[in-house]
């Protein structure tokens, strides 16, 4: 079996598994899985930039939040219908990524990390500053009645799971396909040796900008989906913590793999879920995992699997 056939089977298999799990799992865990899938979209968006292109951003929360607020504000304050508001969220995130990219991509390495962190911080502070509209840290709720799509209630467990799964599937398959295209391969080349890539005739700057825009837009999809399915918009999602999370998830699951993000979110979610029953210092787990990962297994779970066993893993 060729590598690409194995990959296709793997990807479809994951989706099939997610469908099956809905029928098999008790409601609490099914609800968790809805959340996990939405956050996995965020992780996949981040993975495109970090895992494939090699750019470590510490400010992705601003794209997630742009999607979330773009959706939430147009819906609540503007009275837009759900699909349009959703698109507004994604467009906001993508547009923000374009602007940030034009500035931040003039830097590299550590400077890029700090610049993205600073822009994200600014974003968070701006959200707080315009608290009259955004309700700041407290956030606002999106009424159940509004979260319907053509009569289909998106707040029920089924509604949530199905919507999350559909959105996840689109992003999952779409991104898996993208990284196989010449564009995707060039991103990997940039990660491996940017100067060499330039000297092969590729416009590295343009590639990085496009990667950032897609990455930001996908993060925005996750943000808008989160608001839509869980009914809450708040400034916490724009804080540094929400920029660290996707880095953590992707590192844990395996940067530069297609299934890594989902695995990373899944593990981290349950790790934190379990430990928060014991202590409110559950981020300690996050800290320990980050240190262990970076010292012993920088490839992450799927990455180590790919290195040692399944060399074809996409």
């Amino acid at each position: 079996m060729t590598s690409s056939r194995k990959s296709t089977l793997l990807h479809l298999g994951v989706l099939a598994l997610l469908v099956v799990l809905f029928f098999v799992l008790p409601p609490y865990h099914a609800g968790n899985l809805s959340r996990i899938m939405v956050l996995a979209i965020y992780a996949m968006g981040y993975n495109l930039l970090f895992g494939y292109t090699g750019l470590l951003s510490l400010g992705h929360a601003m794209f997630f939040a742009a999607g979330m607020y773009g959706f939430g504000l147009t819906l609540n304050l503007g009275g837009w219908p759900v699909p349009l508001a959703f698109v507004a969220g994604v467009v906001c995130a993508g547009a923000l990524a374009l602007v940030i990219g034009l500035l931040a991509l003039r830097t590299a390495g550590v400077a890029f990390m700090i610049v993205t962190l600073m822009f994200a911080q600014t974003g968070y502070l701006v959200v707080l500053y315009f608290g009259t509209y955004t309700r700041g840290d407290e956030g606002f709720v999106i009424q159940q009645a509004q979260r319907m799509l053509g009569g289909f209630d998106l707040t029920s467990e089924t509604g949530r799971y199905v919507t999350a799964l559909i959105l996840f599937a689109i992003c999952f398959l779409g991104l898996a396909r993208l990284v196989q295209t010449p564009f995707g391969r060039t991103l990997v080349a940039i990660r491996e040796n940017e100067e060499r890539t330039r000297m092969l005739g590729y416009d590295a700057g343009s590639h990085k900008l496009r990667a950032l825009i897609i990455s930001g837009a996908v993060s925005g999809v996750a943000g808008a989906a989160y608001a839509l399915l869980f009914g809450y918009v708040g400034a916490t999602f724009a804080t540094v913590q929400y920029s660290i999370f996707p880095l953590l998830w992707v590192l844990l699951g395996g940067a530069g793999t297609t299934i890594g993000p989902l695995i990373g979110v899944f593990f981290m979610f349950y790790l934190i879920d379990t430990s928060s029953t014991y202590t409110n210092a559950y981020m300690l787990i996050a800290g320990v995992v980050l240190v262990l990962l970076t010292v012993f297994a920088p490839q992450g779970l799927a990455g180590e699997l790919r290195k040692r066993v399944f060399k074809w893993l996409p």
Partner: protein
Amino acid sequence: MEFGPHLMLASLEGAVIAAILSLTAMGLSIVFGVMRVVNVAHGEFFMLGAVLAWYVTSALGGHPALGFVAALLIVPVLVAAIAATADRLILKRINYDADRTIVGTIGILYIIQQTTLMTFGPDARPVEAPFNTRLSLPWFEFGENGFAMFWPWGLSTTSYKLFVIAAAVVILLGLWMVITRTKIGLVMRATQQDSEMAQAFGVPVGTVYSLVFGLGAGLAALGAVLVVPIQQAHYLMGHDPLLLSFIVVIIGGLGSLPGTIVAAILIGMSDGIISVFFSPTIAKIIATLLVAMVLVFRPQGLLGKTAP
């Protein structure tokens, strides 16, 4: 209060902020200058300084000055030791690789912060200042009798705050003397210039790195011990100093010590003044945007030598 006195008050507050900030930022700058790594956990070492100072002063009891002096001597060294251990255990293993160090220090950030949450708790706890007399400050005006001084109500500072400013100056001078006049300082500067060459000359680069990492953390902790009688100790108090230190070091130029001091004074004073006259949020927005723009358009900062 009229504008003049209000400005003076804001400036004094700014000066205190600048004093602490210059110590904290200096720690971050030295670590980057010599080791070429960005320590994201730097703010947590600051917080540890404050929290441990609380433990020391509570344990000792008696006159606050006693506890305070003990804290001033013990805590920075303790925090430096913790940092040096982190360097040995973690940073050395990953060979100071830029990406992995950022991730690793983020991990250390959460470990320190959350452990403090679990032991110290979520509340803010005060530490009493060793001395704290209120000093009214004069303002002047040109009245019918010519130049006259008066003491506006509300325009005051405390002897302790003045002490903090003085202490910071003294410590920075001491640091400058150590770096430029002593053998240890020479070794540090040599390692910064060319670590391979230094190693060839028998300089134990690994040990120097641990020492420098410890020094950076110790300076932050020192700043925290000085500020805790004014601010209170809280497990989240590392966040703002981290951000401000980043801003200072980048604007001043990563690796440039005089640049760090100039930037600290600039940022500290502006933060104080803008916070008093406008809102703290606006001050922070301006500061964070400024850092980003400086990095994008003038990466060497105002006085820096090497681009990051």
